[in-house]
């Protein structure tokens, strides 16, 4: 399910089946060109990827809007805010709160997060042709689906 009015109606009727919420985390900045552009590309890929993941498992997961933060932000402070999100979700109740991100720096403070952090290896799609992009996203989706299944 996505955070849309149509899906929220479905969620409301099937709450007991949808016990997992997925929060994509993406850094952003507008500064040095190369680094900013890289963040922007990754944001796109994360959006695409999260959408595919949701399609695959829509009957059991809810996908939230992307949580964005400034690339240089103090991660511990961000973690506090993410935990606020997490507590809000757990009230619903969602049993599993999973964060997905290309940003490996969360790994270090994964213990301070109240949900599970899943790091995804970066897939650069900038120069790939559309057919290859589909293949890459599909592969990564299926692998992540397996990983998510292990939490159930």
């Amino acid at each position, binding site marked *: 399910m996505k955070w849309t009015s149509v899906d929220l109606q479905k969620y409301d009727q099937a709450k007991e*089946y949808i016990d997992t919420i997925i929060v994509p985390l993406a850094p952003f900045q507008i500064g040095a060109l190369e680094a900013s552009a890289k963040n922007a590309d990754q944001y796109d890929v994360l959006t695409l990827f999260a959408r595919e993941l949701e399609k695959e498992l829509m009957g059991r997961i809810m996908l939230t809007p992307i949580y964005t933060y400034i690339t240089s932000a103090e991660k511990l402070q961000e973690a506090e805010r993410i935990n606020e999100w997490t507590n809000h979700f757990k009230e619903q109740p969602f049993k599993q709160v999973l964060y997905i991100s290309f940003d490996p720096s969360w790994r270090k403070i994964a213990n301070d997060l109240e949900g599970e952090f899943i790091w995804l290896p970066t897939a650069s799609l900038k120069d790939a042709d559309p057919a290859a992009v589909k293949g890459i996203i599909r592969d990564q989706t299926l692998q992540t689906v397996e990983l998510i299944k292990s939490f159930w």
Partner: protein
Amino acid sequence: MSDEKRQVSRRQFLNYTLTGVGGFMAAGLLISPVRMAIDPVLKHDEGGDFANVGLEVSEITSDPQRVDWSVDQVDGWYESEVSRSAWVYRNDNDEIVAFSPVCKHLGCVVSWEGSDDYPDQYYCPCHDGRYYKDGVNVPGTPPLQPLDVYEQEERDGMLFLGNIRPHEEA
């Protein structure tokens, strides 16, 4: 010659012109209601487009295989590419069947032999929904309906899939 020309009298000439002009006006007035009346005939079925899924019919076996393809979907002014997939196999009557992989419970994607515990069945990872090879839901699992099927046809040896319809044996 000149006698014959005079056979069109002034009265007749006026009659002809008035009928002509009146006819055009009547046609002009009628054209929109008529167009509206026969509209259902002119409207083409937008969902009826078949798409080549890139699979040769001769390659279809009794083992279900997954095909992925994409179609252009026009939603008002917004045109987008939507990806579709299906599980295709040849049933016992040698007919080709293409199932939509969307679970009838809550819409997850099912896969053939998706669980090692249930060979020869479609399996939904979300809530352990299962379907037999013919797409019918296994009683006692969450789904209450069989998998939907795609309309299909063969063109030049390639498989084309169209609209999704409910399973007929339900």
